[in-house]
């Protein structure tokens, strides 16, 4: 069979997570049938689900978080009762004293909660001692360097443990898949419908479950189903404040003298579906906000259902019919907002917005207009069939002909490096640290618009310098045991440029050669 290494690079890097090292034969397989290699992923829709021992459902996780919070509260009260000015009780490792910088578990949220009472949103802070500098052990399995890498850490609490377990499951999956196209689709949709773990404890607890439950089942399904699953997921309702939003004329709104919060409604239209300029007005935002009042999750008391599960609170729902984008929706309770979402999902602006973002992510910052038009038509014709959308992308000529100009995101870069080095992590710490450093903390974008998706964002001076530092650390640790030229064969073979090959051959050490390989344009661009 003809071998086309250049097309193999497109298959592996543009659509997937890059070639695995070792005996995978990824590059050879991709070169013999590039399109088939990518599309094989699409033929296994159940393989995109992520179920690993220990990963729990959103209600289970919510209940664990509630229990943990209760425990912290009790410990704090017990401490207060005993010695009002002393350090907190030993039990849960959360520190309610904001000004004690020597405490390991100090967090901004604790500070803000103290200051603001019940305020929930917070920004990452840093409460660690200065000498506890980061260890760039991105590729280091914990078996080789167990907890010793982090000097005498306090035990992790359930939220930290959960976040790490979810992160590890995602990373291990990314290391092991053949091409990785469906995993890349998961990352794309997860960023499109992002939440941020920095919102608060529940968001951090639910970040992984949100992706497993609301994104993965629909990555090869229907957009409308994903939209509904996302907007009704407790993580999203918490992230964009909808659990606090009350219909002004609802019973709860009247009793509690509180009312609407239009945060989620606006982002649904601006970021999730129609896109800004997609033809909606402030009136539409307010109207959708009213329609989704009552969309919440059951709290710790379980009055609305199993704690931590989605619930429709009719008492908080704004009564009456609503008009959205010119259409009237009767007062049908939960079904009112669901009907609106279903209509927004098939709005022409949504098709256009999604097609453009999809092509921009996979092909080019300024994607070929003909490709965008074709993807939009497929989206419309199939009523938002995301598998059809992905297939149309792989079938297009543009996706194979466009030069590899996209910069790998930090996540792509770290995962691709790990795959090439054939290191399946046993501990997510190194990856999480490096993602933080490179500006893409896992499941924690700065805003609801997610991480940027253009090359300019990731090829900035600071970012490149940091990538080099990280690549050098990997080289220093792993270089002695590998042959960089073998890795170049796995990664690019004869698609590697003469200059890259020569640079690696002439490196002064294997360590240096590995760093240069990981930083080569063949590994950085996709």
């Amino acid at each position, binding site marked *: 069979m003809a071998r086309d290494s250049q097309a193999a690079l497109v298959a592996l890097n543009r659509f997937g997570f890059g070639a695995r090292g070792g005996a995978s034969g990824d590059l050879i397989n991709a070169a013999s049938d590039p399109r088939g290699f990518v599309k094989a992923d699409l033929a296994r829709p159940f393989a995109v689900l992520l179920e690993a021992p220990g990963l729990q459902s959103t209600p289970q996780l919510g209940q664990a978080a509630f229990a943990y919070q209760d425990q912290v509260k009790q410990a704090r009260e017990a401490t207060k009762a005993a010695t009002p000015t002393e350090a907190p009780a030993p039990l849960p490792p959360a520190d309610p004293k904001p000004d004690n910088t020597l405490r390991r578990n100090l967090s901004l949220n604790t*500070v803000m909660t103290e200051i603001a009472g*019940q305020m929930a949103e917070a920004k*990452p802070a840093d409460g660690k001692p200065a000498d506890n500098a980061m260890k760039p052990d991105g590729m280091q399995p914990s078996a080789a360097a167990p907890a010793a890498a982090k000097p005498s850490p306090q035990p992790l609490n359930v939220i930290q443990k959960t976040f790490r377990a979810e992160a590890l499951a995602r990373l291990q999956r990314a290391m092991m898949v053949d091409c990785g196209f469906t995993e890349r689709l998961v990352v794309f949709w997860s960023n499109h419908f992002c939440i941020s773990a920095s919102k608060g404890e529940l968001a951090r607890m639910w970040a992984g479950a949100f992706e497993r439950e609301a994104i993965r089942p629909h990555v090869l399904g229907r957009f409308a189903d994903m939209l509904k699953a996302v907007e009704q997921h407790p993580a999203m309702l918490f992230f964009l404040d909808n659990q606090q939003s009350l219909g002004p004329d609802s019973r709860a709104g009247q009793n509690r003298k509180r009312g609407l919060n239009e945060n989620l409604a606006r982002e649904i239209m601006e970021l999730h579906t129609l896109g800004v300029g997609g033809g909606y007005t402030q009136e539409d935002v307010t109207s959708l906000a009213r329609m989704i009042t009552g969309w919440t999750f059951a709290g710790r008391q379980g009055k609305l259902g199993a704690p931590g599960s989605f619930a429709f609170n009719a008492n908080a729902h704004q009564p009456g019919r609503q008009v959205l984008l010119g259409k009237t929706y009767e007062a049908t309770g939960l079904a009112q907002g669901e009907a609106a979402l279903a209509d927004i999902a098939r709005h022409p602006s949504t098709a256009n917005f999604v097609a453009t973002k999809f092509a921009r992510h996979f092909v080019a910052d300024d994607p070929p207009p003909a490709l965008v038009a074709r993807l939009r038509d497929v989206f419309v014709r199939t009523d938002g069939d995301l598998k059809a959308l992905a297939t149309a992308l792989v079938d297009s000529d543009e996706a194979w002909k466009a030069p590899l100009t996209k910069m790998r995101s930090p996540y792509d870069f770290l995962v691709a490096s790990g795959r090439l080095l054939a290191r399946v992590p046993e501990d997510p710490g190194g990856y999480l640290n490096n993602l933080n450093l490179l500006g893409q903390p896992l499941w924690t974008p700065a805003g609801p618009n997610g991480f940027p998706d253009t090359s300019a964002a990731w090829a900035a001076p600071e970012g490149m310098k940091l990538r080099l530092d990280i690549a050098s650390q990997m080289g220093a640790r792993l270089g002695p045991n590998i042959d960089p030229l073998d890795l170049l064969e796995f990664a690019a073979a004869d698609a590697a*440029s003469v200059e890259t090959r020569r640079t690696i051959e002439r490196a002064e050490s294997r360590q240096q050669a590995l760093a*240069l390989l990981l930083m080569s344009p063949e590994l950085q661009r996709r």
Partner: protein
Amino acid sequence: MIDCVENRLLTSRRGLLLGGASFAAWAYLPKFARAADGRDPRLVVVILRGALDGLATVAPVGDPDYAGLHGSIALTADGAHPAPMLDSFFALHPSMPEFARMYRDQHAAVIHAVATPYRDRSHFDGQDVLESGYAGPGRVQSGWLNRALEALPRGERVSSGLAVGPTTPLVLRGNAPTVGWAPVALPQADDDTAMRLVELYRHRDPALASALSQGLQLEKAASGDDMKPKPGNAVAQMRQVARGAAKLMAADDGPRIAALAFDGWDTHANEGGPVGRLAFLLGGLDGALAEFESGLGDRWRDTVVIVATEFGRTARINGTDGTDHGTGTIALLAGGAVKGGRVISDWPGLKPANLFEARDLKPTTDLRSVIKGVLQSQFGLSDRVLAEMVFPDSASARPMKGLVV
């Protein structure tokens, strides 16, 4: 708690971004930096991302409708946390004592009921308009500050620069070269490896060659223990980043014109009044301004700091003790070069009929006029350059006079 162990094991650049800041600066000194009159003007642009509640920061307590609209989070001039009066009408948030002091010393001013030309309510478009300087969204190739730099006579190259974060903020993106710096807590790649990679990029990927070379230079320029990240909360990080920036900008060969951004002002729920979430953030901003003042030392007298945000928030609080996206807000000026001690405002009033679309503070001042006024006074840019290059199609927004001493 927000950040579990992986966020706490390091002070990440993103941590600074999220909790604090991103910076960039022009890579050159303006040629007149050492002109005969000894004036050596400096400019810092601080972007507050997320839409600052101007009515909660500089409260029109003299407006009879204010207290009712801002409800549970309204400021008052008396009570447990009194807001200091700036004049007979406006009061300043009590968590900004440093700004209050600068204001009393006539080195700080407020412009109220101000807005960019953007009239919708998307953060991202709003920030694009604020930073790009174009009259509408969709133009993200360059920012107004960068285009202002293009119009300045270029002197020596700065030998140190500053920028935090893997991305340059739009306001300073464009043709004029910029530099960046960020603190690192990571062992560095050795020079030889770096040079080999730059060489490879030169042949195969010039864009990456340029980015990496810049990144390497900056790291060298800004090394020094004071610049290393230290633990702390978002407020401490805002201060720390400002301190590093001020130190670099105070140097004779340091950058003169810089931008930074603080995130986190999107207070939809539980915004808080004199204490609470917004108070916490304003305290950070106040601390950052104080750091610039002390860090710039003698140079503070030639400095203007502009603080601006993409739009304001609803005049009436929403159903969750916060505020939703609005329109009119404030801009702040601070620095020894500011002709301060004034709240500059053509106050539109807060009666329902006076509100923009019956919900937001109506903007009566174009933010571009404020910025143009500062750029003109600090750097002598002409009306024409300001109206065509820096803020295209903005002739109607005349530069505001008399903002700078």
